């Protein structure tokens, strides 16, 4: 049997299809204006890519902010539970997960079966999220994908003291006008995100082995800064961004 997980986030929509033998395929698209349409499109594209028909799929679980707009899903679950299940699937020894997505960051503790025992989420501010990084990338006129590598070239990261996205953006602009190096500003931004996420992670009491998931985990600069702040290794899978969708598919397969 094939099972599909669809994770509709605030910025991107992800899907994964699995069977008893493993992951068959994953797909990431922009969520855009219409979450329901994004859910359908990611599903169609994923199936086409894997040469599957809708009738081949035994179970579908949707997750993420747009979870309730996937009308063809059998069930919807929150991304918290799905990220726990996904991380466990990718590495069963993992006991703590830090997920940094577009508008949310969360930390969770999972048991030896991948079940979420406890979680904490960011307060309702965009600091420490993917959206924060997007805004900063725009201000710096740098492609977000280049952020990670650039920041590793910094030896004196700038200090970004404001945690408000809007104020941090003006802080970045004043650093630019002061002639600070781009690499140092980006490294400072990563440290600021890592500080916010680490505070959240400590609140729930994370401990190794810890895995970071979500789109922001693709940014090596944030991962390195987070390792430093938490004082523990942070594992990142190549499936980090689709981890929520994988978790949803895993739970769909179980059901």
């Amino acid at each position: 049997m094939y099972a599909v997980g669809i994770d509709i986030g605030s910025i991107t929509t992800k899907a994964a299809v699995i069977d008893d033998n493993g992951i068959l395929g994953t797909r990431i698209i922009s969520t855009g204006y219409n979450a329901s349409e994004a859910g359908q499109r990611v599903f169609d594209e994923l199936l086409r890519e894997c040469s599957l028909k809708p009738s081949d799929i035994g179970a579908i679980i949707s997750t993420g902010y747009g979870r309730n707009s996937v009308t063809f899903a059998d069930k919807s679950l929150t991304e918290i539970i799905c990220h726990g299940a996904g991380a466990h699937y990718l590495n069963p020894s993992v006991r703590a997960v830090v997920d940094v997505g577009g508008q949310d960051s969360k930390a969770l503790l999972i048991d030896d079966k991948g079940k979420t025992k406890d979680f904490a989420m960011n307060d309702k501010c965009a600091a420490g999220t993917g959206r924060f990084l997007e805004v900063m990338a725009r201000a710096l006129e740098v492609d977000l994908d280049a952020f990670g590598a650039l920041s590793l070239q910094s030896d004196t990261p700038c200090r970004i003291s404001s945690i408000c996205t809007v104020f941090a953006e003006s802080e970045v602009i004043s650093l630019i006008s002061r002639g600070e190096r781009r690499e140092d500003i980006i490294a400072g931004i990563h440290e600021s995100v890592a500080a916010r996420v680490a505070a959240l992670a400590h609140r729930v009491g994370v401990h190794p082995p810890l895995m970071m998931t979500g789109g922001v985990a693709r940014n090596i600069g944030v991962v390195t800064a987070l390792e430093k702040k938490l004082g523990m290794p942070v594992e990142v899978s190549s499936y980090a961004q689709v981890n929520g969708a994988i978790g949803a598919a895993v739970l769909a397969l179980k059901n």
Partner: protein
Amino acid sequence: MSQTVSKTPPPIAMDEKMKEIMTNYYIEAKTASDSGKRVAWITSGGPVEPLIAMDIIPVYPENHGAMIGASKMGGSLCEQAEAMGYSGDICSYARADIASAVTCGGPIGGLPRPDMLIACNNICGTVIKWYEVLARYYDAPLFIFDTPMCHTDYPEESKRYVQRQVHEYVSFLEQVTGRKLDQDKMEEVGRLSLEAQRLWQAVLDTATARPSPMTAFDGFYHLALIVTLRGTRVAVDYYRDLLAEMEDRVAKGIGAVPNERYRLMWDNLPIWYRLKWLSKKFAAHDAALVADTYNTAWCRSLRYIDENDFLGSMAEGYTRMYLNIGVDQMADTIIEMAEKYSVDGLVMHSNRSCKPYSFGQYDIQRMVRERLDIPCLIIESHMIDERSFSEAQTETRIDAFMELVEEKNQCKER
């Protein structure tokens, strides 16, 4: 979510009576100058009984604030206060009240002008500055009833200090009204106040039944009289009838949440503009909020007050209010209630308006987890400033929390 067909419980019959009493109360307060009565504005945890005994109409900016919030008018009033220069970090009751005083805005066109102001800081420190602003604005005399924090106990020096203020308070009222306090009437009002508190506690206790005949959301509505009219016969009669209705619902097995499966506890003030939404949200998960720290705040001091010497003992009762005790005692209270009402999870409203209520919640959450091993949730908001509420984020948190509660219960059943 449950697959069984939901049967909506009948509405609480006393809802209508409450509406009638509150309407009459506000009409009487707003026409006080016509009837020659004086109006005192007083904080929600303030010692109101001497006012009732002296026939002064107590008016509560906080109750007014709750009405503003429930009418979803908090955001615009807060905005007006911010335009006057008040920071958005200040309590939303204070902001909305100050704006309403100036603009006569809100669901009842503002409160009647005060002849005096009574601020008791057993609920927070903001009330002092808030009432000083009001005193200047209305040019009305202000009495500050200062209750030192009881971190662990109620020491002798605090006792003497607060008791002395009881006498000063009475002198203040006598001076403003030009009348003497009738001691017999005072004791009678004290007895009625305690009786209403006991009945209110008994009403809340009916929620220990499974299914619970009422939820904390119902409590937030029926709470109005214990705040505004304690010390009167009206409140006693009302809660006696409400208790009878709740006991009848228990006997008939009527639950406030159809198919009640999970029982939760709420901490902090309600999110007034989202009561219905929250109530439906939890009910959709077959969860009933059966206990909370807010509704019980008006009866938890009962144990400290001597029915036969109200004026001589109320100092301790008012000083040892829930928000005026240490975090350890707050955690003990929550744990005791969680056990009494057999709850499966704790929902904490981190209320940016109410600092003393929200400070310490992370510690309390940790203590509850350690001692009871139940899931805890924190929702962030301002109690009446609807601009601060994020629906999608709150919804995800509640859904994830309920997934944990369900999971935990399944483990218990296995």
